[in-house]
């Protein structure tokens, strides 16, 4: 079966493999160190580890879009900002 119609490229494959690795990593983390029960952070709503991953990924997408729209096409700084944002979300939200 050919998947050429999906027009895979190396960067997009790495992108999806990273998300898959994050999901697997979260499962392993929860298995060995359970602690994914809801908690209330600075935003005053309950979130689990999965919720925080979702917020991090969604926020990262918008950080990259905003960087692209407002600054320029060099997205490495946007990636760094997204990582800092994700750490903040997992720590405080």
């Amino acid at each position, binding site marked *: 079966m050919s998947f*050429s*119609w*999906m*027009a*895979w*490229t190396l*960067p*997009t494959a790495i*992108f*999806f493999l990273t998300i898959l690795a994050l999901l697997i990593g979260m499962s392993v983390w929860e298995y060995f160190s359970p602690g994914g029960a809801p908690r209330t952070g600075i935003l*005053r*709503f*309950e979130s689990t580890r999965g919720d925080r991953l*979702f917020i991090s990924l*969604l926020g990262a*997408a*918008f950080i990259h*879009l905003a960087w*692209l*729209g407002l600054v320029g*096409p060099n*997205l490495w700084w946007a990636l760094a900002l997204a990582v800092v944002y994700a750490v903040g979300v997992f720590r405080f939200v």
Partner: protein
Amino acid sequence: MNKTWNNKAWFLVLPVLLLVAFSAAIPLMTVVNYSVQDTFGNNEFFWAGTDWFDEILHSPRFWEALQRNLLFSFIILALEIPLGIFIALNMPKKGLGVPVCLVLMALPLLIPWNVVGTIWQVFGRVDIGLLGRVLASLGFDYNYVRDPIDAWITVIVMDVWHWTSLVVLLCYAGLVSIPDAYYQAAKIDGASRWSVFRYIQLPKMNRVLLIAVLLRFMDSFMIYTEPFVVTGGGPGNSTTFLSIDLVKMAIGQFDLGPAAAMSIVYFLIILLMSWIFYTVMTSSDADS
């Protein structure tokens, strides 16, 4: 007590996983792949990087369509949610009126979207449509083909006619599930009609209202068929919503790369708005 570890139940989830993979995950991955490439057909692709995203984010056409979409969804929610609650509150709770009202409410939901568009396209026409002729005979200069305000009013009224019943049915389901004891207690306390609504009916409808708001927001934000059939996105671009613009770009112009990039931005906005609605409404529910 010993817990039984049986992971065979995971196989029951497998059909859903396969369905989601083929209906959502694989198409989404393909769109992401297209969004960073250019193609002229024949399964040949050329790397474009973030060019299409850059083009979309700096396109006035995209931002204007997004503003129209947000305004449309805001108007739809502001009209359909209160109207749906009002109708549900006034529907009979017992007797022959219940099935009659339920069938009447369900009727618009059973009509396919393109048929709804066709009905309103004919209904609003000044030359042959009942609505258009009546308004013209009353002295209103109504013409949805020529006037952007008339086109907006027609599309909004059509959507309200089509989808308010969904809100009504959801609210009605929430209302009939409230035990009589609540109303009896309110009566003993001498509660006013407003107090009964504010402190009994509205909190009990919270869950169904969340579903109604989410469904109506997502659906109105993704609306395509009805306005496309009635106005074709016109006059000018006045009713060109994101979905109509997207189809023009992808199918009309065969610009698959920019269309894919626009799809992803569109998807992210829907995801963000739905998450905000869900979080705010579930948090307020937990607080109450």
